[in-house]
């Protein structure tokens, strides 16, 4: 009960959103991909004058790689336009619902002026959920079925 309550009252910003990585629409795809590798991130937001035009994710990169596409084109040519996004006051439950229904792994969080302030990720959501039952997850032995021969400290 209390768990459901916190899902509908806690803002999505509690679910460990990432700092969004922002690129210009004119940036070329190859450079954007290298930036993603350097930052170890799965997605970038394509923004102009503080407004989100699109999102470019790992999946988009994979499609280009598979098609051996020209990587010198502008990222605005290959991004997903007008991505589904969350407002900063959306709650965690809404974020989870949007992700599982749409199959998204990243959702930009926009301020009331439309500026991107964060990026809700599926990892963040999982982290948030695990926080609600840490004893169940964090106290597991490294291998299932492993039986400790002695009690620790005994």
């Amino acid at each position, binding site marked *: 009960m209390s768990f459901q309550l916190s899902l509908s009252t806690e803002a999505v910003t509690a679910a460990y959103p990432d700092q969004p990585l922002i690129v210009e629409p004119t940036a070329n795809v190859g450079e954007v991909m290298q930036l993603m590798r350097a930052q170890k991130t*799965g997605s970038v937001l394509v923004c102009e004058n503080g407004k989100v035009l699109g999102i470019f994710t790992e999946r988009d990169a994979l499609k280009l790689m598979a098609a051996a596409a020209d990587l010198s084109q502008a990222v605005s040519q290959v991004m997903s336009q007008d991505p589904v996004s969350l407002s900063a006051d959306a709650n965690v*439950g809404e974020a989870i619902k949007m992700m599982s229904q749409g199959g998204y792994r990243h959702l930009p969080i926009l301020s009331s002026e439309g500026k991107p302030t964060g990026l809700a990720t599926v990892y963040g959501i*999982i982290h948030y959920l695990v926080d609600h039952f840490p*004893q169940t997850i964090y106290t597991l032995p490294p291998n299932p079925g492993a039986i400790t021969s002695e009690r620790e400290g005994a």
Partner: protein
Amino acid sequence: MITCPFCESEILEGADICDDCQQSLTDMSIPQPATPVERGLLKDRIKTLEPKAPSTVSPDTPIGTVLEKMITESIGCVMIVHEDELIGIFTERDALMKLNAEVSQFVERPISSCMTPDPITLEAKNRIAFALHKMHVGGYRHIPIMTEGKLTGVVSIRDILAYLTERIGVPV
């Protein structure tokens, strides 16, 4: 102050037996699942998630072919199997980290040159809590699932999210 559940005299935290009544206190430290979700995670086995059949390739498949396969099958990872044995995994993340913009130099090379060898695996009979633990702690998106040592499925973070969403009853 902690009291003994049997004789209610004062005990020290972490004591194995009560000094007064000599009853064993070791059971007190066994964690108890507090919510139905936790009970489910510790009780339900990975096979209840119905892991999808894995997409497999042989180690000498060219990288270009593997990339196309991932797109046409709309999947995020392939398993590299040699003589019925799982030897590696190749995911979207590997493509981004290892091939990246230099992908054209690699398309002819065998997938074994850039796979992640010896991935962490779980058995279908293991509890779902372990899958969540591995994914969260290791940062994985996919875990190969074995049945009696043979690769039979793959569980993704999406399956786990769907399971949790359903159990928690995310408000609509």
